[in-house]
């Protein structure tokens, strides 16, 4: 219909106009359009108050799906290039499901803790919320985050595609140690098999030592209940470790004497080395960082000042420092870290940069408090080969062409 078509065109042109007028989308040319007196000279009342708030309809960034045969056994990627600060909005937290997202009524959900315990117990959600709770900011990163199979850099790969399987939330829940003291751990106990309530009943073996240290049984994410895609109503959050082990839709903790060699810690999430041996129980995520702004797909609007910004994190504690290179890794200089720097959390770094208009290669490297320095792709491959699918923490480069175009490149 003509009226529908014209109103759509109107809405689209207004949207385009305003996007160009603000510094909103990093993927567009960052050129402000001069507006005299701004819009809305004749002012009208805006919307009234509402129930569950949504974002401005001018904001369009979304997760992007990873190619997969089945949407239920797939992943979606966080648009890191469009985020500020360190917390990932719950609606943009990356996803990795192996059998879809279950639809769980929290009033019917139970957590069983059994096995090598003195008092096997079943908890309702209400009972779990009666227990002492803590709130912590932790990242969760899929150990497969990074370019598939160590492939050389494709110029058009952006940060969302290359790094989008990491997200950071404020989690609230019961320390697992509290639950373990409630059931009483027996002497022979060494591991806990955690089981999810998704269709595939995802299981992983968790070392008891970590369980008694800092693991959360979480029901809260960024101030509200977990999102269904993040394990509603209950999940493990295991700080610093590969995301797969933070079992979502948690229904059972089975205390045992040895790792149970579940499919996810044998066939998957093990790292095949050049000698044919595989590393197993490679839990911690290595020191990692990436520049998110500017990043692949952006186009800089001429020489001049650009603040470079990105995220750094480590599964071994706090980020100690981030260094920036503008010459493809030939030289490095320190970046500013947004305080507070929290352990096992995304850390925002910033670096003031004046672009002279010539071709540059931007890169960042993370140094964590364990002393680990983020390596180059070639250094990683020299030790680990290219047959492992996980734990690729290689330095990411962005080539800034003299045209302003930003491309993915290896350093």
């Amino acid at each position: 219909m003509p009226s529908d078509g014209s109103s759509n065109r109107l809405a689209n042109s207004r949207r385009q106009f305003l996007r160009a007028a603000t510094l909103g989308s990093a993927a567009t040319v960052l050129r402000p359009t001069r507006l005299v007196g701004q819009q809305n000279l004749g002012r009208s009342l805006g919307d009234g108050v509402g129930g569950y708030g949504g974002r401005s309809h001018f904001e369009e960034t979304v997760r992007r799906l990873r190619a997969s045969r089945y949407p239920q056994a797939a992943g979606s990627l966080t648009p890191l290039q469009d985020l500020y600060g360190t917390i990932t909005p719950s609606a943009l937290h990356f996803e990795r499901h192996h059998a879809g997202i279950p639809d769980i009524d929290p009033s019917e959900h139970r957590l069983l803790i059994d096995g090598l315990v003195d008092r096997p117990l079943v908890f309702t959600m209400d009972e779990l919320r009666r227990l002492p709770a803590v709130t912590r900011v932790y990242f969760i990163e899929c150990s497969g985050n990074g370019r598939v199979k160590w492939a050389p850099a494709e110029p058009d790969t952006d940060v969302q595609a290359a790094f989008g399987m990491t997200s950071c939330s404020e989690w609230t829940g019961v320390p697992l140690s509290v639950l373990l003291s409630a059931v009483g751990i027996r002497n022979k106990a060494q591991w806990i098999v955690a089981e999810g309530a998704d269709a595939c009943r995802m299981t992983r073996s968790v070392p008891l030592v970590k369980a008694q240290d800092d693991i959360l049984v979480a029901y809260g994410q960024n101030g509200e209940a977990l999102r269904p895609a993040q394990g509603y109503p209950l999940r493990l959050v295991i700080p610093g470790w590969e995301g797969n082990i933070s079992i979502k839709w948690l229904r059972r903790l089975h205390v045992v004497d040895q790792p149970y060699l579940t499919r996810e810690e044998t066939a998957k999430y093990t790292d095949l080395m050049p000698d044919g041996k595989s590393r197993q129980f490679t839990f911690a995520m290595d020191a990692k960082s990436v520049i998110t702004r500017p990043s692949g797909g952006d186009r800089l609007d001429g020489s001049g000042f650009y603040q470079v910004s990105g995220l750094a994190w480590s599964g071994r504690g706090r980020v100690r420092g981030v260094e920036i290179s503008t010459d493809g890794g030939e030289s490095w200089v320190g970046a500013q870290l947004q305080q507070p720097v929290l352990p096992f959390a995304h850390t925002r770094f910033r670096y003031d940069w004046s672009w002279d208009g010539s071709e540059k290669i931007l890169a960042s490297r993370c140094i964590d408090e364990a002393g680990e320095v983020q390596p180059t792709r070639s250094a990683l491959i020299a030790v680990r080969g290219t047959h492992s699918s996980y734990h690729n923490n290689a330095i990411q480069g962005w080539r800034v062409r003299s045209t302003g175009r930003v491309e993915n490149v290896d350093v």
Partner: protein
Amino acid sequence: MCRSALPVIIVAGILELCPIVDAASGQAEGVGQPATTAEVEAWGSIVGPDGTGLPPGGSTATEGRLLYDRQCAACHGLTGQEGPDPRLAGGVGSLGGEEPSKTVGSYWPAATTLWDYVNRAMPFNRPGSLAVDDVYAVVAYVLYLNGLVGENQLIDGDTLPQIEMPNRDGFVPDPRPDLANTSFQTAWGDPNLQGVWSYATITPLQRPVHLEGRTFLSDEEVAAQNRDSAIRATSERRNGLTPERDLSLAYNQVWWDRGDSTGRTSLIVDPSDGRLPGLTPEGRRRQEAQEVARREHPYDSWEDRPLQERCMTYQRVPPVPSGYSNTYQILQVPGFVVILNEMIHDVRIVPLGDRPKVSERVRQWNGDSRGRWEGKTLVVETSHYRGQTTWRGFPGSSNLKAVERFTRVDPGRIHYRYTIYDETIYTRPFTVELPLVSPPEYVVYEYACHEGNYSIANVLAGARVQERSVRSGVSADLKD
């Protein structure tokens, strides 16, 4: 002397080290319902590598063939090798080659994993739909496709865990960190020493007599020293003190920043006895003169007061650790290294390269420093000290020379040594090794030395009052 900024970050750091809750407090008692056997069974089985959790039942590959063809082959292929979804068979011997094929037969370390996974997750679109015997049958068939069991071999809770999978020894523990760290460089190519560094340690300068002949402490001794030091720094030990005595101690653990043991018995690493070398006759003469002056003319002039009391400098460059403010901030720009010491905020600007020294006639409390790179090591030579610069109660001379060596060995650590040459005072040079580490979020604090602003005049005025009192025969013991 005191630092005026509360070390909030240190306090926060201590809190962060505490366990996330008091796990042993039993707070969860009475919450949660005891699980009945029926409930535990209803949750389903979890199968371990020794067969724990395998239910009664069993089957054979022959029985599994039709089931596999109908329920599994569409995704995994009729022989388990066609795909498109994960290959289940073949690939043995391929793992160390160019194109490794990770299948149940070539890769999975335990046959029990297959039962557990099929039972909980397969078929993909109807997980949990297979009866127990059907799971045994499909498992038997997949193992048969890999040549690991016979066609009619019974697979059950006893036989399954005993199947020796080809890759059962193919897994190793996590060896990370497994990469050599990249060295640090500044933007202009110099080794990067920048950061805030602590040289705090409780290890004494000189080896205590009772540790004679020993260079290192045992791990147990180090732990004991660190524990004792931590206890000494806490306020708990002050519980028994009167308020007056407590106040007179002035500092509590908010201020102390003494560090831990280095593991050595002394900071002096050369001479090998860990002790300062002997004094020359001139050295002894100067030390005696210094002691006499301190005893007989302690308050004649501000010049008789110690340098740190006058907020001139704490204890000369390079330092020896004390109770607090054992902190360097190192900054670099092309051609210069700047070393800020938190104590009294002494700053050394160290030119690099061949820049000539100041004139012999220019003498400074902390000398004149020049630096150079020897590979990745920053070497700083300092001379042109004033002869009056004392050091931990020992005299110095204008012939003093210090050579410091800084080498960054990892992101959080600099190897730091210095050698003191002063042939006027000592019979030989000596070398000190200090820790230099950068704990997370370590910062420099403001340092406010108030004695230099206000107290010296009062100290001297008090001494004059005391002298007049003595002359007039009135007792005025200032010490109270």
